[in-house]
C-alpha cells in the first residue's frame, strides 16, 4: 500500500490555508482514501475551481487542473468523457459548487458521470474574505450580510440526491475516519459521487459570527453532528439544530461514459462500412 504522502507534492508544502481551517484535513482525507485504494497516481486527475478549496490540487501529485470559478465539474466532464479510464476527482467549495457552479453540479449529477466531487463546505467565501454563500446558514453574518443572512441555504445532500448522484455522503473535519471512509466509498462508485466535507473557517466565518476560534468551531461540528444510522432512533426534538452525517446514498445506476460507450458500439455495428471523415451529401436532410 502507498502512503498518503506519496500522493502529495511535498516541495509545495506547507499549504496556504489559515490556522484552524479544515481544508488541509480534507485534502489529507482524500489522499488517504486514494492510498487505501492504491490508485496509480498517473491515472488520477484532480480538478478544482476557484476559492480556498481549489488550491488543493496544487499540492497533490497527480495531473492537476485549477480552473475557473464554478466550472471545475464542466472541465472534469470533458476529461472524464474523453478518458473514462481516468479517476477524476473534483475538489470544490460551497460557493464554487453551489452558487456559480450550481448548474454544472446538478447536471453532472443528472448524467451520473463518473466523477467524485468533494465539496469543502465552510459556509462562507473565504478567499474573498467572508461573503455569504448559498450554504451560509440563515441568520449568520457575512461581509455581504452585515444584518444577518436572509437567504435560505441549500442542503447539499438533498440537492445531490435529488439531482441524481448515486453516492452521497457527508462528514466533518472532526469526523476524519468517517470522512476517509466516505471518500473511499465514493471513489469506488462508478457514477457521480458527492462527499460534503464540513469544515470550519475560523478566520472569516467564526470570527464574524463571534463563534470562537478553531477549537470552538470544531467542537460545534462534533456536538451538532448526528450519524444517519443513529438518527432514526432519535426524536424530532433531539434532532433539532443538528445535522446528519454518514452515507446517504450508495446505489448503482448506469454511468454516463459507459452508456456512451454502449451507444458507440451499437452505432458502429450499424455503420460498419463507415470510413471516417467524409459523409455522403444525400444523408443530410435538415
Amino acid at each position: 500500500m502507498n502512503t498518503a504522502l506519496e500522493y502529495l507534492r511535498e516541495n509545495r508544502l506547507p499549504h496556504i490555508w489559515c490556522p484552524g481551517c479544515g481544508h488541509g484535513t480534507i485534502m489529507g482525507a482524500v489522499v488517504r482514501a486514494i492510498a487505501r485504494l492504491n490508485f496509480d497516481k498517473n491515472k488520477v486527475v484532480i480538478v478544482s475551481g476557484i476559492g480556498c478549496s481549489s488550491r488543493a490540487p496544487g499540492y497533490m501529485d497527480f495531473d492537476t487542473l485549477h480552473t475557473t470559478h464554478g466550472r471545475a465539474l464542466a472541465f472534469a466532464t470533458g476529461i472524464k468523457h474523453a478518458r473514462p479510464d481516468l479517476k477524476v476527482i473534483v475538489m470544490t467549495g460551497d460557493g464554487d459548487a453551489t452558487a456559480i457552479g450550481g448548474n454544472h453540479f446538478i447536471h453532472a449529477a443528472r448524467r451520473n458521470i463518473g466523477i467524485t466531487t468533494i465539496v469543502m463546505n465552510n459556509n462562507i467565501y473565504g478567499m474573498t474574505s467572508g461573503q455569504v454563500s448559498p450554504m451560509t446558514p440563515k441568520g449568520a453574518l457575512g461581509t455581504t450580510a452585515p444584518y444577518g443572512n436572509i437567504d435560505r441555504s441549500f442542503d447539499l445532500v438533498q440537492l445531490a440526491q435529488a439531482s441524481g448522484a448515486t453516492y452521497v455522503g457527508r462528514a466533518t473535519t472532526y469526523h476524519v475516519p468517517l470522512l476517509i471512509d466516505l471518500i473511499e466509498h465514493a471513489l469506488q462508485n462508478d457514477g457521480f459521487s458527492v462527499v460534503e466535507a464540513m469544515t470550519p473557517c475560523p478566520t472569516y466565518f467564526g470570527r464574524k459570527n463571534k463563534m470562537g476560534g478553531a477549537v470552538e468551531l470544531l467542537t460545534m461540528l462534533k456536538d451538532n453532528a448526528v450519524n444517519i444510522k443513529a438518527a432514526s432512533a432519535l426524536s424530532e426534538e433531539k434532532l433539532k439544530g443538528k445535522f446528519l452525517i454518514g452515507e446517504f446514498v450508495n446505489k448503482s445506476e448506469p454511468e454516463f461514459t459507459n452508456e456512451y460507450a454502449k451507444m458507440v458500439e451499437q452505432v458502429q455495428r450499424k455503420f460498419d462500412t463507415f470510413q471516417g471523415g467524409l459523409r455522403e451529401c444525400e444523408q443530410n436532410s435538415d
Partner: protein
Amino acid sequence: MNTAKLMQGNEACTIGALTAGLNFYAGYPITPSTEIAELCSEELPKIGGKFIQMEDEIASMAAIIGASLAGCKAMTATSGPGFSLMQENIGYAAIAEIPVVIINVQRVGPSTGMPTSPAQGDVMQARWGTHGDHPIVVLAPGNVRECFDLTIRAFNIAEKYRVPVIVLTDEVIGHMREKVVLPDISKLKIENRIRPKSKNDYKPFEGDAETLVPPMADFGTGYRYHVTGFPTNKGEIAGKQLERLLKKIERAEPELRDYFTESTDDCEILVVSFGSSAMSSLSAVRKARSQGIKVGLFRPKTIWPFPVEPLKAIAEKTTTIIVPEMNAGQLIYEIERIAGCNKHVMGIHKLNGELFKPDEIYNAIVQGARK
C-alpha cells in the same frame, strides 16, 4: 477525384473538423450554429469520437478544454450569446495554451438580437472578448469551401501553436449551400501537437527556443503537472509567461497570414471585406472594373492577427479604402490604423440583418472614384 457536392457552410465546417481529426465535441444548441452540433452528434459516435450536449456554453467551453488536456482534438460551435458566455474560459484556454477550436456563426446582436439573420458584430469580441491581454487566432471563411479549409487550418494552428482558434462565420456563410469539390484528403497536411519526449525534464511552461511553444503532455500519461502552474503573485513570473504567449503568436504571424486579393496590382480604390460581405464586395469590384474603375479587393481570411504587411503594401498605392461590414464599424479600426491618416477610409455599415447588395458597395466605389 472527389465529386462535387451541394454543401452547407455549417456542414463544411463539421466535415473539415472531422478531417482535421476532431474527436471531441461539446456544445449547446443555438441558432444559427446548431447544425454543427447535430452533425457531430451523428458522426462522432461512428468513429468512436465523443459528443456531449452540455448544460450551457460556459460548460461547453470548459468541457472541450478538459478533453483537449486529455489528448483529444476538441471543438465547440456557437453564436453571439453563447460566444459571450464562453469568453472567460476562452481566456483560460489562451493562458493555459490549450488547443481548441470555437466556431462562431455570427448573428445580429447585441443580446438575443435577430437569431436567424447574419451579422459581423463579433469581430472585436473574437479578438478582445475575454479579459486581459491574451493571444488568439481568428479565421474568417468567405464561402462554403473555405469553411472546410479554414476549419482544418484552425485545428492545425491550434495544435501547432497551442492556442484557441476561432472560426468566425455568419448566418449566411453557415446556412448557404454551394457546390463544393473537396480536396484529396490524403494530401492535406494535418498538424498534431508536439508531445514531450521525456518525463524527467518536462517543463510545461518553457517554450521551444524558436517557436516559444512548449510540448503538451496528455493527462493520464504520467507527467502529473499542474496545468496553470503553481499559483503565484510574482510579477516577474506572470509577466514573463504572458509575454511569451503574446510573442508566440506575434512570431507566427507570417505563417498565420492568409488573404485573398483581386485586381490589387494597379488599384486606386481598395475594398477590404471579409466573410459573407466579401461575396458582395467581389461582385461589386468586378462590376466596377468592367467599367474601367481601378478598384481591387483585399479579403483577409485570417483576421486576427490581421495580415498587416500585405495590406500595407497594397494600401500604400491607393487613395481610398472602402470597408463594408455588417456591423457599425469594427474591422475598420484596424484598417485605418494600417492605412495611416493620409488615406480616405470609408466604412459601409449594415445593422439590419441583411446581406450587402453588390450595388450598395458598387455605389460606394463609384463615389470613391469621383473624389
